[in-house]
């Protein structure tokens, strides 16, 4: 076998191996890369939020603002966009097994707001964690969701 023939065979084998391979191995799409820090957003409890995550990320502030006026001024309660319910469902347990306050960087709201450099003043007045109740035995516990009030 001449060198030329060997070369042609090698090229054919190489093409057979590489060309279809190129079509199949599209590089994996990455969101960001290792040099970009993303916020560590703790998961809430339950299966799903009161709306899609995309919607909540973009519109939670509007919904909260709208509903707060209805609740405070008209007394409308029980609607889904309640700050109290956000805080209850998205409570993050600290090292003492109790929910952390907004003083902790692990707090759900803070995790993202720190990242986005958006300061909020909700928690100057509102509780940043669910009500903590103590039962007769002195055991602390957290009241959540519908069980509260």
């Amino acid at each position, binding site marked *: 076998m001449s060198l030329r023939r060997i070369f042609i065979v090698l090229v054919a084998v190489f093409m057979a191996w590489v060309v279809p391979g190129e079509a199949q191995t599209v590089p994996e799409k990455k969101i960001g890369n290792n040099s970009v820090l993303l916020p560590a957003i703790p998961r809430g409890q339950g299966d799903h939020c009161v709306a899609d995550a995309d919607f909540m990320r973009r519109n939670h502030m509007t919904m909260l603002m709208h509903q707060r006026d209805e609740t*405070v001024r008209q007394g409308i309660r*029980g609607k889904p966009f309640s700050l109290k319910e956000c805080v*209850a469902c998205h409570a993050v347990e600290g090292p003492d097994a109790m929910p952390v*306050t907004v003083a902790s960087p692990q707090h759900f709201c803070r995790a993202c707001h720190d990242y986005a450099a958006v300061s909020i003043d909700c928690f100057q*007045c509102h509780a940043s964690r*669910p009500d903590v109740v103590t039962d007769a035995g002195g055991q602390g516990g957290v009241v959540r969701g519908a069980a*509260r*009030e």
Partner: protein
Amino acid sequence: MSGKMKHTGIAAEFNPARRKFLGAIAGVASVTLAPGVILYGITRSGDARARKPGTAASPDVRWGLLIDVNHCDSGCDKCVSACVEENGLQGHGRPATDPQWIRKVKIHDPDTGLSQSLPVMCQHCAEPPCVDVCPTGASFKRADGIVLVDRHRCIGCRYCMMACPYKARSFVHEEIEDQKTYAPRGKGTVEACTLCIHRVDSDRLPACVEACNDAGGGAMLFGDLKDPNSEIARRVARYASQQIRGDLGLDPGVRYRNLST
């Protein structure tokens, strides 16, 4: 006010003029701020009715209180401590500036020797002067007659505190942590008795009324003044009661029985 009556002791450390005013309100001689009440009473629990979730407070309702002064013991302050506990009003040991949503007022008539003790809180006026003066619309009266501060709009100017003839409002001077989820409150805003709006909206009695009932019968009756079948409406229709400084025409929703004026 009888001219022969005179003010004697004023225990408050601040703003004696307001206290004096309260003395005038009660039409008796001396006013003493006193934490302390034991309320023995005859009244039953109130007529709180829960609204359906998602519905607004109705103007067909007017929440009110009827307080029987004869059943309010000067040594008892259960209503005050219940309010502090319920709304997370723990102070800093500085009575001049610590928030106070309800207080016990003692009145004494030197002519007859009669001493009485009564709780005074926001009187939830139908024509609230605090709402009139508020420059931002933060002070408002809800449809069911409860006068509130919308802290989202309050700028802390304290005009409402000056306008209130009952000295019912407090200013929050210091940062607060770990508020109750149902009672948000923060530095730089004015606050007052909400009639425990979170309880009323879920068919429960205000904390002070509940504590008073638990203490032995109850001097405080809570209910809907506009519902002719409610216990409070029947009582105010049957027995004489009065509003403190009724002459101001503010039409408070809090009424008192057996107050010696």
